[in-house]
C-alpha cells in the first residue's frame, strides 16, 4: 500500500507533468532538428515560431468564442489549431522566401544562417508583442480535469493520488499521433524519403532529380506546423506568455542535441529525457521516502537535490555533460 502511495505521488508530481512537458519539448525539438537536418543551421527563431502559432490560435479562439463557438469539454483552441498551423506555415514560407533562400543560393556559412535566424527572431518577437501585447493570456476554456486527485483517492482508497488534466491527456496523445505520422511520412512516403536523402547527401539528392526548393519549403512548413502544435499545447497546459518562449529555446536545443541533432527519434527521446530529469532533480522526495522507508529512518529535510527555481539549469547541465562526453548525442546525430 505504501509503495502504491509513493507511486501515485511520483505519478502526480513527476511522471504526468514530465511526460506532458517532455511532449511539448519533443515537438519543439523535432522542428529544430528537421531544420538542422535539411538546412544545416540552428534556428534560433524556433521559440518565437511556437509563440507565433499559439498567438494566431488564441486570436482565432477569441473570434470563435465571440460567435459562441465552443468544443464542449475540450478547449475551443483545438478547433482553430488547423487555421493557426496554416498561418504559421505561411509565415515560415515567407521567411524562407525572403530571408533564407538568398543565403541558400549563395551557399553561405551556417553561422550566417544563424545570425539571420536571430534577425527573424527579433522581428517575430516584435510582431507578436505588437499584435497581442506582452501580457499573459489564458485561453484554456475546456474542462480542467479528466479526473482529479480527490476523485482518484475516493475511487482507489489510497492516501495519495494523481489527477489527470485534460491538457495533459491532449498533449501526450497528440504528440504520439503526430510523431507516428511524421515517422511514417519520413520513412514510407516518396516525399519523406526525398527529404531524408537531401539531408543525407545534398549533391547526390540533386543528382537523382530531387527539387531542393520543394524539400526546403516542405521542411519549413512541417517545422512551422510542429511549432504551432508545441506552442498551443504549452499554452493550454500552462499559460501563454510571449516572454517564455525565448527561455524555452534552451531546453528545446538541449533536447535536440541530447538526442542527436538531425535525428528525429533523438529529438523526441531528448525531449522526454530533459523534461523528466528537470522534474526528478527538483522534486522534494520527503513524502515519497516517508512512505518507502521504515518510520525510524524518516527524513527531516525536504530531500531535494536542487531548488525548483533551477529547473532550467538542469537542462543546461545535461547539455554540457552530453557535449563533453558524447557530442553526437544519444542517437548519433550529426556533429555541428
Amino acid at each position, binding site marked *: 500500500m505504501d509503495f502504491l502511495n509513493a507511486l501515485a505521488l511520483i505519478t502526480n508530481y513527476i511522471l504526468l507533468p514530465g511526460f506532458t512537458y517532455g511532449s511539448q519539448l519533443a515537438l519543439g525539438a523535432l522542428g529544430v532538428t528537421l531544420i538542422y537536418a535539411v538546412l544545416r543551421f540552428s534556428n534560433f527563431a524556433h521559440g518565437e515560431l511556437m509563440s507565433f502559432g499559439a498567438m494566431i490560435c488564441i486570436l482565432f479562439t477569441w473570434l470563435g468564442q465571440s460567435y459562441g463557438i465552443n468544443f464542449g469539454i475540450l478547449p475551443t483552441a483545438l478547433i482553430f489549431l488547423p487555421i493557426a498551423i496554416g498561418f504559421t506555415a505561411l509565415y515560415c514560407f515567407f521567411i524562407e522566401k525572403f530571408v533564407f533562400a538568398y543565403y541558400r543560393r549563395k551557399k553561405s556559412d551556417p*553561422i550566417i544562417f544563424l545570425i539571420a535566424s536571430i534577425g527573424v527572431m*527579433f*522581428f517575430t518577437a516584435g510582431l507578436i508583442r505588437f*499584435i497581442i501585447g506582452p501580457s499573459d493570456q489564458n485561453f484554456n476554456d475546456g474542462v480542467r480535469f479528466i479526473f482529479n486527485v480527490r476523485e482518484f483517492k475516493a475511487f482507489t482508497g489510497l492516501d495519495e493520488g494523481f489527477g489527470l488534466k485534460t491538457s495533459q491527456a491532449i498533449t501526450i496523445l497528440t504528440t504520439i499521433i503526430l510523431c507516428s505520422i511524421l515517422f511514417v511520412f519520413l520513412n514510407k512516403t516518396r516525399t519523406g524519403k526525398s527529404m531524408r536523402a537531401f539531408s543525407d547527401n545534398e549533391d547526390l539528392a540533386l543528382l537523382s532529380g530531387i527539387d531542393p526548393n520543394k524539400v526546403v519549403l516542405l521542411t519549413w512548413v512541417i517545422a512551422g506546423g510542429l511549432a504551432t502544435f508545441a506552442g498551443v499545447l504549452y499554452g493550454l497546459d500552462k499559460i501563454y506568455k510571449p516572454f517564455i518562449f525565448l527561455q524555452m529555446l534552451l531546453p528545446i*536545443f538541449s533536447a535536440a542535441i541530447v538526442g542527436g541533432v538531425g535525428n528525429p527519434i533523438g529529438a523526441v527521446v531528448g525531449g522526454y529525457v530533459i523534461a523528466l530529469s528537470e522534474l526528478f532533480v527538483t522534486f522534494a522526495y520527503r513524502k515519497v521516502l516517508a512512505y518507502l522507508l521504515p518510520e525510524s529512518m524518516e527524513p527531516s529535510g525536504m530531500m531535494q537535490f536542487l531548488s525548483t527555481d533551477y529547473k532550467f539549469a538542469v537542462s543546461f547541465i545535461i547539455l554540457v555533460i552530453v557535449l563533453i562526453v558524447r557530442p553526437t548525442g544519444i542517437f548519433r546525430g550529426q556533429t*555541428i
Partner: protein
Amino acid sequence: MNDVLRRSLVFSTFAVAIVFIGFLQSWNVALGIFNLCLISATMALGVNIQLGYAGIFNAGVMGFAALGGLSAVIISYKPVSETISLGGLGILICILILLLGSVLGVIVYKSNLSQAYKKILFPLIIIVVLLLLNLIGAPAVERIEAFEPAASGFLGGFGLPIILSWIVGGVIAGLVAYLIGKITLGLRSDYLAIATLGIAEVIIYILKNEDWLTRGVKNVNGLPRPVPYEIDLQESTWFIELCQNFGFPLVETSSIVVKLSYCFLFSIVVLTLFILSEVALKSPWGRMMRAIRDNEISARAMGKNVKARHLEIFILGSAIIGLAGAMLTTLEGQFTPTTYQPLRFTFTVWVMVIIGGTGNNYGSLIGGFLVWFLWVEAEPLGLYLVELITSPLSETNPLRIQLITNAAHMRYMMMGLLLLLVLRFAPKGIFPEGR
C-alpha cells in the same frame, strides 16, 4: 583618406542627431541617451573582440553584464553587520568547501589514476561537496534571508568606492569566462552559441534566486555614486552662484552636470578600451587572431595554439562586457536581475557589432551609438507611425487603442529588420574590416 572621411562623416551625423535631440526634446534626455550609448559601445567593443577578431559566437553577453552588475553591488554596498554575524561564517565555510572541492577535482583529473577510479571519485567529490553545502549553507542562508527581508536580508558588500567595481566586474566576468571557455570552446560555432546562451540563463537564475547574495527579485537599490548627487549640488553655494551668474535654471543644470560627469567617466573608459583594442588589432597578436579566424587549420599548421588563443580572447571580451555591466549598474544606481533579457542584452549587442562592421573597432563604436539611439528613439517614432497609420480609425476603436499601447514593441521589429537588411545588403557593416 577615404576611410577617414567616411568615419568623420558617420560620427558627425551621429553627433548632429544627439544635438538635434538636445534641442528638440531636452539636453537632459540627449545626455541620458548618450551615456547609455557609451555603455553600449563598451559592450560592443567586448563582443567585437570575440566575434570580429576571432569569430567566437558568445550568446552569453547578458550573463557577463549581470556579473558586472553583481560586482557593483558587492563592492559598493555597505556591509550589513547583522546578517554577517548571523550567517557570514557559514557562507565563508561554504566558499572554502567549494574551492577545496574544485581543487580536489582538478587534482584527481590531472593525476594518473586509472579511468575507473576517476569515474568513482568524481561523482563522490560532487556528492560530498553538495551534501556539505546543504548542511552548512542552508541554515546560514535561511538566517540571513530571515533578517528584515523587506529592507535587507542579504550580506551587503564591502562599502568600497563603486568605481572599483568596474575593474572587479571585469575580473569576475573574466574568471567565469575562463571556466566556461575551458568547457565550451572546443565546440563548433552553433554549439558554442547555444551553450553560452544557457550559461547566461543559469547566471541570471542564480542572481534571481540567491537572495543572500543579491536580494534576488527584491532588487538592490541606492548604490552609492561616483559623482555628486543633484540635491547636494543644488544646495552648495558655489553651484547656485554659478547658475545665477550664467542664468541657468538650477534644477535642470544640476542634473545635466551629473550626467556630464558620468559621461566624462564613461568616455575615459571607452577611449582607453578603444585605443587598446586598436593597438591589439594592429599588433602581431591581432594578425594572428584574424589568421586563426580565417583559416584555423593553416594557423594550426603554423604552430599556433588555437584553443589557448580562443580562450584568451573569450576571457578578454567577456571581461570588457563585465566592465560595461558594472558601468551600467553604476549609472542606474540599482541592481535589478529581472531586467536582464537576452533580447535586450545579448542579441542587441550582436546587432550593434554586425551593423557597425564585424572586426572593426570604429564600427563597434558607431554600432553601439546608433543602435542604442534607435532603440530609444524607436518608441516615439513607432508611436508616431502607428498613430499616422491608424488615424482613419475612430479614437475609441479597440484595434487602434491596442496598436497604440503596443507601439513600443516596434523596436524589436525594427532591430530584426535592420539586422536582416544589413546582413543581406551590406554584410560588412558601416565600416568594413580593413586589411
